[in-house]
């Protein structure tokens, strides 16, 4: 039972790492391209939000699995 909670916690942490790396790379790419081409900043920002939303979606699926796991075991 405790191991299940541990698994949920570790899973959430790994999701945070993965999503953080992904969104960080998007942010890096976006800021670099905005610095290179400030006139295209609007398009780049739109693409950045869209891609970040993709990553966020995947991360949230994982987060929900972890929440379910924790609630199933703990609650």
């Amino acid at each position, binding site marked *: 039972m405790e191991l299940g909670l541990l698994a949920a916690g570790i899973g959430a942490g790994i999701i945070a790492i993965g999503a953080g790396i992904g969104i960080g790379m998007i942010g890096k790419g976006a800021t670099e391209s905005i610095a290179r081409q400030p006139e295209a900043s609007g398009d780049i920002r739109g693409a950045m*939000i*869209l891609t970040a*939303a*993709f990553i*966020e*979606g995947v991360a*949230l*699926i994982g*987060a*929900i699995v972890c*929440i379910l796991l924790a*609630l199933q075991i703990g*609650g």
Partner: protein
Amino acid sequence: MQIILRRFFLFLLILSFYSPGLVAADETNESNGSPIDVMGKVLDHDYIEVAGKKIYLPRIFLAGGQFYFYANTESALASGDFIVENERIMRADGPSVTIDFSITSHLMYVWFGILLTFFITWLAARRYRNGLGSETEPRGVWQNLFEVFFVFIRDDIAKEYIPGDKYHKYVNYLFSIFMAISFMNLFGLFPWGVSPTADLTVTATLAAMTFFITQFSGTKDHWEHVFMFPGVHPLVRIILTPVEIIGLFTKPFALAIRLFANMLSGKIMIVAILGLIFIFTDMFGAYIGVGSGIVWVALTALLYVLKAFIALLQAYIFTLLSAVFIGMAAEEHHHDEHDSSVARTANVNV
């Protein structure tokens, strides 16, 4: 006017901080002693709460090929036709409920969302039909705000991602779901309000609508690209065709899960952070619990701002991706032209 509005929203905000406390107090008294019921705030219910009072909604069951209507759960159980077995509602004489058509809180909020959208759009349409906005400039804050959203959907989403003149057909759908999803998402910010988009059933239904519209607007080229890859070796097709067919279904699936997960996580986070007050009260006593409440309430206020932003952002992303999928299906590929242009340049090079 502004001051009144500000006070009203401030009041709502304060009330929204208040409600989990009341619910938690209720729950702790009757259930298993867990200080706050996170899932209870997230799941669907057979009542809607208005100012802390529960209004029970009608239950409709299809069981054994017959419809049963009841004013609420209690009357359904009191009638004797239905009993609770394994925490599910069952017919008293055996067969389980085939389809549960009950009106639930999430369904009520779906209806609120679409009615609000329709009402606003209808009002705007009446204004435009009267010549205000079509012959003159749009007047007033609300009409301008409405037009900002409408033109945004039409120009930046529909026109941008759906090729050619085909986008005209989809403006209605895209605008409707954008506004409806926005309102449904934002309802979750109101006290006692729930966002029905934090329910997988709602988002899955919306995604299914996008899926069917996408498939019905698919051109010959689209289907050719799904099943037969022109100019690809037959052996590669064996791998690519299943991948493409699976891709048809994963796209709306991801669409549904994304919206659902975003809304649900926002809700759970707010309930969980506010729940820390009660957890702290349980662990360290009332004074520390209430004292630390300042921190949690401030954090929740920040989360509220984030959630309001995410509510609009997710509605935008759902609409945008719908438009992108429809646009991908409706696109006409021009292989012949492309090939001949390549040939022309090749000739020039020779």
